[in-house]
């Protein structure tokens, strides 16, 4: 029997990354009790654990592009109308300028220019220089400290397993301590989900599944919990790829193309122009798409080429961007024996995942008030569809926290349903008493094999159907995974969530008889983008079955 903790609060925030920490702080500012729970340590957790270097912001400094209107128009085009731009307007655009100033006041170096001003660059087809280049190594610990000092109660090393509901409303959540195994029951008036993206469901080119582009410890828990609680998940079939250095999943592409770096093939030709009129300044998806075809048609390997950059651009990139974006970037270069300024750096198409970078259209469906379709349940950051990126997630989280705080103020605490708590306790610990003899690694490897074989870059009807039945078979084996300790239990529950996310991806992909967003959803049997498919998939879960409804694009 594991010991139990019961925690009551007005607002519960699940996941203390970039979005969740801001959500908790903002809810606290409304004067309510706030608990922030994370399976990691919060001060350094999530995608921003070891620092970020680009802060998206619309500062309204004068030029046309630096206005909310131009930004929104571009964002609408980028997401092809599959994202409601009211969310970006209400969360990001209302806050990014103010947040930029606040971060500076907190002591985060935002103005890194020689003239004491901002250094701003653009990438991924942006109409202007929206990305402030900054030194964000201390960002995560700093905002965590501010949230904790403001009175947010931190609960660390507790993985949340599922939400608690009562009469269609979310009333709390349950989880367990990832070392001691102790059980946690949370009762709350409102819950904000902010557990980030979904990774580890596709094979990694290096063979190391945790060597992932975004945090490998984010496994789509929020999306899976939201589905199980009755909320909707949008467009899961669009799996995201990027370009990373060979065998090393550093998210360097933004920095490289932002500074004017090139992508070249084995013949030394810049190839992205063949696939998008803007070349390396095109949207992110154009680069994995072009690289895929260069390799398929025998012109690989492909490379980052920075040799033409000026000395000052190289210095900025190598000293200020790449090692801040990924703290171990220069260790990789050194151990591989390359100098990024003078040598070509081989690249690869990353593993597939669901990160909410800017322009992503997949995740929990929320409205412009960050509300899911279930009362009492809010979401923000990379787990939800709204606005991606670091700054986008922070603002999205802030807005979700403010909305949840205001809702909690006008709501009574609802009772927990005891049989539901008992059932979830049993489900949580089932892997500890399993008589099966699989460990989580074996089962997770099988998941990656299925997804990579049938549901990855090149899709067709028969393959997707085969993938779906393989996933069903794997789900049946889930009860045979044995967990020996809290760590195993955490990984096993991550797999439970990944299985549902994978099923959602496959279900959406099987139904969508067209191709869209480059490699994200490329159906060999329906290679064209079709007007009749210009709409969003909305999935919901009922009695274990995923149901689809389609929603027209926002114009």
């Amino acid at each position: 029997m594991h010991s139990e903790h019961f925690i009551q609060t007005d607002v519960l925030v699940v996941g203390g990354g970039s979005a969740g920490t801001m959500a908790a702080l903002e809810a606290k500012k409304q004067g309510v009790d706030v608990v922030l729970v994370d399976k990691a340590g919060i001060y350094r957790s999530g995608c921003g654990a070891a620092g970020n270097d680009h802060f998206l912001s619309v500062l309204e400094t004068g030029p046309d592009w630096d206005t909310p209107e131009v930004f929104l128009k571009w964002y609408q085009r980028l997401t092809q109308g599959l994202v409601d731009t009211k969310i970006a307007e209400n969360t990001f655009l209302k806050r990014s300028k103010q947040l930029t100033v606040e971060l500076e006041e907190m002591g985060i170096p935002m103005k890194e220019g020689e003239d004491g001003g901002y250094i701003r660059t653009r990438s991924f087809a942006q109409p202007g220089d929206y990305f402030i280049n900054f030194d964000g190594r201390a960002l995560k610990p700093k905002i965590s400290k501010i949230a904790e000092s403001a009175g947010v109660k931190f609960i660390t090393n507790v993985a949340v397993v599922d939400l608690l509901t009562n009469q269609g409303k979310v009333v709390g959540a349950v989880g367990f301590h990832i070392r001691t195994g102790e059980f946690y029951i949370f009762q709350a008036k409102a819950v904000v989900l902010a557990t980030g993206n979904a990774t580890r469901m596709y094979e990694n080119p290096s063979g190391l599944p945790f060597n992932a582009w975004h945090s490998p410890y984010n496994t789509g828990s929020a999306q899976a919990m939201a589905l199980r609680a009755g909320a909707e998940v949008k467009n899961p079939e669009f799996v995201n790829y990027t370009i990373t250095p060979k065998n090393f999943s550093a998210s360097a592409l933004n920095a490289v193309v932002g500074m004017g770096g090139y992508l070249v093939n084995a013949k030394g030709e810049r190839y992205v122009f063949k696939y998008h009129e803007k070349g390396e300044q095109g949207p992110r998806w154009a680069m994995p798409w072009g690289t895929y075809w260069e390799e398929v048609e025998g012109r690989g390997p492909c490379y980052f080429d920075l040799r033409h950059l000026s000395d000052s651009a190289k210095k900025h990139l190598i000293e200020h961007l790449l090692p801040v974006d990924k703290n171990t970037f220069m260790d990789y270069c050194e151990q591989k024996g390359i100098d990024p300024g003078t040598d070509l750096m081989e690249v690869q198409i990353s593993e597939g995942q669901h990160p909410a970078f800017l322009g992503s259209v997949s995740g929990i469906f929320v409205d412009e008030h960050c509300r899911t379709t279930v009362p009492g349940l809010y979401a923000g950051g990379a787990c939800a569809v709204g606005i991606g990126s670091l700054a986008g997630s922070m603002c999205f989280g802030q807005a979700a926290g403010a909305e949840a705080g205001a809702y909690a103020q006008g709501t009574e605490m609802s009772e927990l349903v005891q049989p539901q708590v008992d059932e979830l306790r049993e489900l949580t610990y089932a892997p500890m008493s399993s008589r099966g003899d699989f460990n989580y690694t074996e089962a997770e490897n099988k998941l990656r094999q299925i997804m990579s074989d049938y549901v990855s870059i090149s899709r067709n009807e028969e393959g997707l159907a085969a993938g779906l039945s393989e996933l069903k078979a794997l789900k049946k084996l889930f009860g045979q995974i044995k967990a020996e300790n809290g760590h195993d239990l955490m990984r096993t529950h991550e797999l439970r969530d990944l299985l549902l996310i994978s099923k959602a991806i496959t279900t959406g992909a099987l139904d969508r008889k067209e191709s869209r967003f480059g490699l994200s959803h490329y159906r060999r049997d329906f290679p064209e983008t079709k007007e009749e498919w210009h709409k969003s998939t909305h999935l919901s879960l009922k009695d274990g079955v995923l149901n689809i409804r389609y929603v027209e694009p926002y114009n």
Partner: protein
Amino acid sequence: MLPIQIDYKRCNGCGICEKNCPGDLIYSDEKTGLPYIKYPDECWFCGACRIDCPKNCLDIKFPLTSL
């Protein structure tokens, strides 16, 4: 080879690397109180363990297949 290498002559056992690791891979040895990586196959190579190490005694070593 382990992805993080700790110089135990300099390590003061402060536990910051253990707290920082976003995947909870680092544990303290019960006897010595010093950190070690318990789940090396689950390393993200993120550097969060190293970034705040007060003794600067932690190195990241990439496995051959990630180079």
